[in-house]
């Protein structure tokens, strides 16, 4: 337990020292929100968005940025780097379990996501009057399951990528797909219906986040799919994971 605490503390310090990653994971969605919010027309309510402003409508999609950055980019890259540099292998020669390092990385990913989500919701509320998530329980469940699904996919990438370069090569297309279906590149109302529908079922499940934010209970099927992806990808990652 002492060892796990020390590993967590050390990994947290390393995370905080890596300013670019910290910015990309925690601050980027809020920065995008602020930049968009500076454009007056995007702050006007519009019938197209159910009488909300575009900024409000777009906020859940910005959450996808964080989730994809942490789950698909940062986590696999860190773990693949650790494997490539023999850090996991060396740890395996000590009484500490490399599993403790993996757990610490997951804890930090969750903390990063949570910090980013809170920052985004608070700034959206204070600066642009975007209401906080209206269905808090549904939102929490959707966020947890969506996060779990994305982290599991990230672990799968980390499990099969022998080097940091390989991890990034795998992560980039996954990242683009996640961002696209999450409605980050093109707002989802511009996507054809069937593409927007697909986004409901690709991690992290932006439709469930959107529904919960605007006050509707998320669709159980949307949540269920995220749970299935989380378990399936997580199990595959556990089977395929190599310490060296």
């Amino acid at each position, binding site marked *: 337990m*002492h*060892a796990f*605490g*020390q*590993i967590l503390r*050390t990994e947290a*310090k*390393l995370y905080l*020292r*890596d300013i670019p990653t910290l910015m990309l994971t925690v601050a980027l969605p809020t920065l995008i929100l602020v930049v968009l919010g500076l454009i007056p027309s995007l702050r006007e309510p519009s019938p197209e968005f159910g009488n909300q402003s575009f900024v409000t409508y777009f906020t859940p999609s910005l959450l996808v940025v964080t989730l994809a950055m942490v789950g698909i980019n940062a986590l696999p890259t860190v773990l693949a*780097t*650790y494997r490539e*540099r*023999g*850090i996991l*292998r*060396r740890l*395996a*020669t*000590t*009484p*500490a379990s490399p599993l403790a390092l993996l757990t610490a990385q997951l804890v930090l990913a969750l903390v990063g996501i949570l910090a980013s989500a809170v920052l985004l919701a608070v700034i959206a509320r204070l600066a642009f009057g975007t209401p906080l998530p209206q269905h808090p329980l549904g939102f929490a469940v959707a966020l947890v399951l969506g996060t779990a699904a994305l982290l599991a996919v990230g672990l799968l990438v980390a499990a099969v990528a022998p080097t940091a370069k390989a991890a990034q090569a795998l992560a980039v297309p996954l990242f683009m797909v996640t961002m696209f279906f999450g409605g980050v590149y093109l707002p989802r109302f511009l996507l054809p219906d069937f593409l927007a529908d697909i986004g409901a079922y690709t991690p992290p499940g932006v439709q469930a986040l959107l529904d919960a934010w605007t006050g509707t209970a998320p669709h159980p099927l949307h949540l269920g799919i995220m749970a299935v992806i989380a378990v399936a990808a997580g199990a595959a990652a556990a089977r395929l994971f190599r310490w060296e």
Partner: protein
Amino acid sequence: MPVIEVTSLHKRYGETVAVADVSFDVEAGEIFGVLGPNGAGKTTTVECVAGLRVPDGGGVSVLGLDPRRDATRLRQLVGVQLQESQLPDRLRVAEALELYASFYREPADPTQLIGELGLDEKRNTPYEKLSGGQKQRLSIALALVGNPRIAILDELTTGLDPQARRDTWGLIERVRDRGVTILLVTHFMEEAERLCDRLAVIDKGRVVALDTPAGLVSAVAPEQRVRFRPSTPLDDRLLTGLPQVTAVTRSGGQIVVTGTGDVLHAVTSVLARHQITAAELRLEQATLDDAFVELTGRRFVD
């Protein structure tokens, strides 16, 4: 009783036989070397001892325990420095040691260890800013921070400049003096000769010799040659009468004395007694390099 016993170890990677047949015992408190050219199977051998790899045949016992089955107990007792293992770039020296210290039941004091390894001024320096020698010293420190009874060190001076290499040797001797048994992998003859109490020479996955460095050398090339130019003419019989001397020849104005044992001392004593000084005095001795050529029929290539 040996602290490490390796018996008929065999290990393959697919079709490649990395270790064909390796056996040796390491006694408590010694520096035992595993010497051989690149690809000989040294790393594979010690990684089996460290429990990182599963042998395909033969047995390994460390402190009477099985490296795989008793891994949990052995990890408290064996410190390992792997070839080619690094740390995160932004991790600082003191943090690395405190982290590794937290893994062990009875760790050494990180601060004291940092001092002993001459890293005091670098305690807050990130890993990426350390020189090669400093990284290597930190890596040794991490292998020692658990107060192990055995330290396994793989190629610890590869890539270091000669000064850093010599400093590291001094450090290893001090560690041994604290009672730690050291299993040292190297492909440097000079390092093996200087540091090891005994060593196993490995070639193509087999032990070709196992002895002290001096024993290895004298087994293959027991003779030494002393050359000098005497200050006054000298009767050969003064030298041929010595028990250590086997032959005396002359080439030019030089005398070449061939012999065994402490022939140099015997010759210089005789000369001193007759008030003859020896100019251009040279001792020609076989080295571990010569021994390796003799044992394997090849020059030792890095």
